């Protein structure tokens, strides 16, 4: 019961904030568009980071192809909206404007998620048999292949990029899915399935020896993670109204990895923190123009030398707030309290 109340409260809060930021609630009060954009991009980053952490942080599988799934989600959902959005709208003409917008968005995102998860399956099955560095390289390769493949599809703009995507995503939807991602990943991790993932991370051979279906677990988490990346991609496309494959190169995959490493692998709140920090750092350093990336990369190197486990390491925010010695330092496996 408590869960439902909290959920409703969160949704209500998001709706309120959305209206407030858009200037629809209080006359004359609206968030500056630039700041709103940063906030929205942060929300998309959160979804990307938390979903990637499921694979890299909790399952210990070294994947650097996340941008590829984001691209699939972005392009497929955008194509649906552009090609079929109006028809769908016509069918549901009785709904108010925002209802129709939301419907189109949700259908588009679902398509993006499904296609991304299918891609995740086909990438995951052959790749997840490989260990460590090899897996990283293969996922990098797949990400690039996906990007080049999309680049050659004229129906979605090819080298010119895909424009004309209606702005269906807003603060509410972005943070709705960010929250949903966090919830889903949290529940996965704090369950028996999550335990097997962490066991695979800790010692895959021992996990297998204890009867765990290691390949199946890895592939499932990979597919789930890709689906979420697809959703993030769809939101990205429907927010910026224009996408180009340049946004989905391995550099983007690196960025997401950096986010989760900064925040702490194996920590959901760490990924959220990392995602937010990342966007604010890159935006905040914009003033320094050319020095921005130099400073950022330097910061990164120093962080790895000084605190490689990231800010939160394996722990969650909660472990700092509650002084109980619950599972301090333990991987986010269940302690029987959920």
């Amino acid at each position: 019961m408590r869960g439902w109340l909290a959920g409703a409260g969160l949704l209500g809060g998001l709706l309120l904030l959305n209206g407030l930021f858009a200037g629809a609630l209080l006359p004359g009060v609206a968030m500056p568009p630039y700041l709103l954009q940063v906030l929205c991009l942060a929300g998309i980053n959160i979804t990307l980071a938390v979903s990637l952490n499921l694979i890299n942080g909790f399952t210990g599988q070294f994947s650097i192809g996340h941008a590829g799934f984001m691209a699939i989600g972005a392009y497929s959902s955008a194509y649906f909206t552009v090609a079929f959005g109006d028809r769908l709208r016509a069918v549901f003409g009785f709904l108010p404007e925002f209802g129709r917008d939301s419907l189109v968005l949700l259908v588009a995102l679902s398509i993006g998620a499904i296609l991304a998860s299918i891609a995740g399956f086909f990438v995951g099955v052959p790749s997840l048999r490989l260990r460590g560095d090899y897996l990283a390289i293969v996922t990098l390769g797949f990400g690039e292949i996906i990007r080049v493949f999309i680049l050659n599809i004229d129906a979605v703009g090819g080298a010119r990029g895909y424009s004309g995507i209606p702005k269906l995503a807003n603060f509410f939807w972005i943070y709705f899915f960010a929250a949903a991602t966090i919830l889903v990943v949290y529940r996965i991790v704090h369950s028996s399935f999550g335990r097997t993932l962490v066991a695979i991370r800790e010692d895959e051979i021992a996990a297998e020896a204890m009867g765990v279906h290691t390949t199946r677990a890895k592939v499932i988490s990979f597919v789930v993670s890709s689906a979420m990346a697809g959703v993030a991609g769809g939101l990205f496309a429907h927010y910026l109204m224009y996408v180009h494959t340049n946004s989905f190169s391995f550099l983007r995959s690196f960025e997401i990895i950096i986010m989760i490493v900064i925040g702490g692998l194996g920590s959901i709140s760490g990924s959220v923190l990392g995602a937010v920090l990342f966007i604010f750092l890159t935006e905040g350093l914009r003033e320094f123009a050319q020095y921005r990336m130099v400073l950022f990369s330097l910061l990164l190197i120093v962080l790895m030398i000084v605190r490689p486990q990231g800010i939160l390491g394996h722990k969650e925010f909660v472990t700092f707030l509650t002084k109980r010695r619950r599972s301090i330092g333990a991987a986010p496996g269940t302690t029987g309290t959920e």
Partner: protein
Amino acid sequence: MTTFLQQLVNGLSLGSIYALIALGYTMVYGVLRLINFAHGDVYMVGAYVGYFLSRRLRGGGPSFVSALLVMLGSMIACALLGILIERLAYRPVRREARLTLLITAIGVSLFIENVAQLVFGPDPKFFPSLAPRADFIVAGVRLTSEQITVIVVSFLLMLLLRFFIMKTRTGKAMRAVSFSLDAARLMGISTDWIISVTFALGSALAAAAGVLIGMQIPKIDPLMGIMYGLKAFVAAVLGGIGSIPGAVLGGLLIGTSEVMVVGYLSSTYREAIAFAILILVLILRPQGLLGRVHKEKV
């Protein structure tokens, strides 16, 4: 048939470049199990150092001597750069988790690229011609003097490297370290020194590649290391990462396939071909063509 031979020659030339860069990746991976993402950027720095040096030596006009000096100068400069990178960025994190090393390497790569953009400016520069130009037509195939230079110089450098690895004490020590860092240290080998040498050698070869490319495709820019580096890396994996002959083989194969695909199929898939090969190799034969299988002891 002549087209095929032409493509082959072009491919060998491109492949030699990839091979030179791939050697650096494979050697560093061999001793440290680290994918040195910054290696492609060292190659870029090599090209730029060559550029600045060759402008300095402009006076004498194009000649083989000046070309040699430029190359040597660049190789030395980048060898030092490689040692510096290793000492400052990689050594402190050597014992950390793989992902930490990876992120550090990415950080170094981004750092070098962005500093280069600041210092050199983002616009491409044009390499002045160093050696006298000439074109040869052999059996209907056009060979430019640059291509010949690339192939010959690469070949020589690879031979030198092989000699060094196989016949000198330092080379033997390098091989020992690549088998087991800890065992080598216990045998009295100064592993820090060997690792520095490895970085120096790899970086020098990358610098040579940079100068050679500068001679061939006169345009250089601060981000040129990214794609070349990535493809050279694929070449190293294809040949079997950690294997020096493998890096050479991989480089030649990748270069040739890329040229063939662009020539016979379509240039839009140029970037993807390397990755497609990579994926096939890793799925069918993860240790690469000439690599060893590492069975984990249970």
